């Protein structure tokens, strides 16, 4: 399966998903920019960080064209939420973990990861993380 996406399409999908989320919560005229400003001020409040995974994964699903099973961890350290999100994405049709990848640092030892993570502070970070997830999913679907 070949996915096609450009940065412009990703940005368009993010905006569409944001509007869908607003409609679902009956929140009017709350732009993503305003939200992200509030998010940066109040990210210790769980309400704010919890919206980000939904926005990111619904955007990914919109571009992939079907629902995926996914789970997201809000990464914390002793000081609290770090701003980092760690996603595990699974294809519900095949049960294949789409965020599974192998990597070698030295050409000998193979390290295996099942998550894709990234820090979100601003809009560009969201675009970057969506792109990172799509690149990984594209590669996993191509291997299937």
């Amino acid at each position, binding site marked *: 399966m070949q996915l096609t996406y450009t940065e412009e399409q990703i940005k368009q999908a993010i905006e569409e998903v944001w509007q869908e989320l607003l409609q679902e919560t009956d929140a009017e005229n709350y732009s993503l920019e305003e939200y992200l400003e509030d998010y940066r001020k109040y990210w*210790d*409040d*769980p309400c704010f*960080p919890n919206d980000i995974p939904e926005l990111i994964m619904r955007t990914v699903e919109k571009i992939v064209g079907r*629902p995926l*099973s*996914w*789970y997201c*961890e*809000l990464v*914390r350290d*002793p000081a*609290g*939420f770090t701003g980092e999100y*760690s996603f*595990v*994405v*699974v294809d*519900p049709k095949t*049960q*294949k*973990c789409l965020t*599974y990848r192998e990597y070698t640092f030295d050409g000998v030892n193979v390290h*295996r*990861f*099942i*998550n894709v993570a990234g820090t979100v502070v601003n809009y560009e970070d969201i675009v970057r993380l969506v792109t990172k997830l799509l690149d990984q999913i594209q590669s*996993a679907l191509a291997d299937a």
Partner: protein
Amino acid sequence: MDREKVLQALREAQAEYDIKDLDRLVREAWEEGDVLYAEIAVELIERAVEILFNQHFLWVHIVESEDCEEWIPDGWYSFVAVHPETGQCLTFLNDPVCRCKSARFRARIRSAEDAVDAVMRLAELIEQNLKSRAVE
């Protein structure tokens, strides 16, 4: 899943982690809100499952918290297990009743008995997923 085998696997995992009293570890993890104890408890459960299958898996786990700001464990845990060779998600659950396809196994673990139950249910889910893959 045979309960006696589960108990034996938990005992072996406890020995590896040098945990004498599982019930105390699990209870203090949520009664005292101790993140470190909760992390040890969750790793011990994963290890017990690996002992049952005599195989390593790739894991992601979440120590859940009611209070996100303070991050105090509330006795709920989520697990995602992936097969290291095939990349198959072994905690995948397709629930036709609630039309839910979930990648994670979730359990409330607040006592040693809960831990035994969690290992048993988690191992059963993994076994079921391994079999379904074998059928394909």
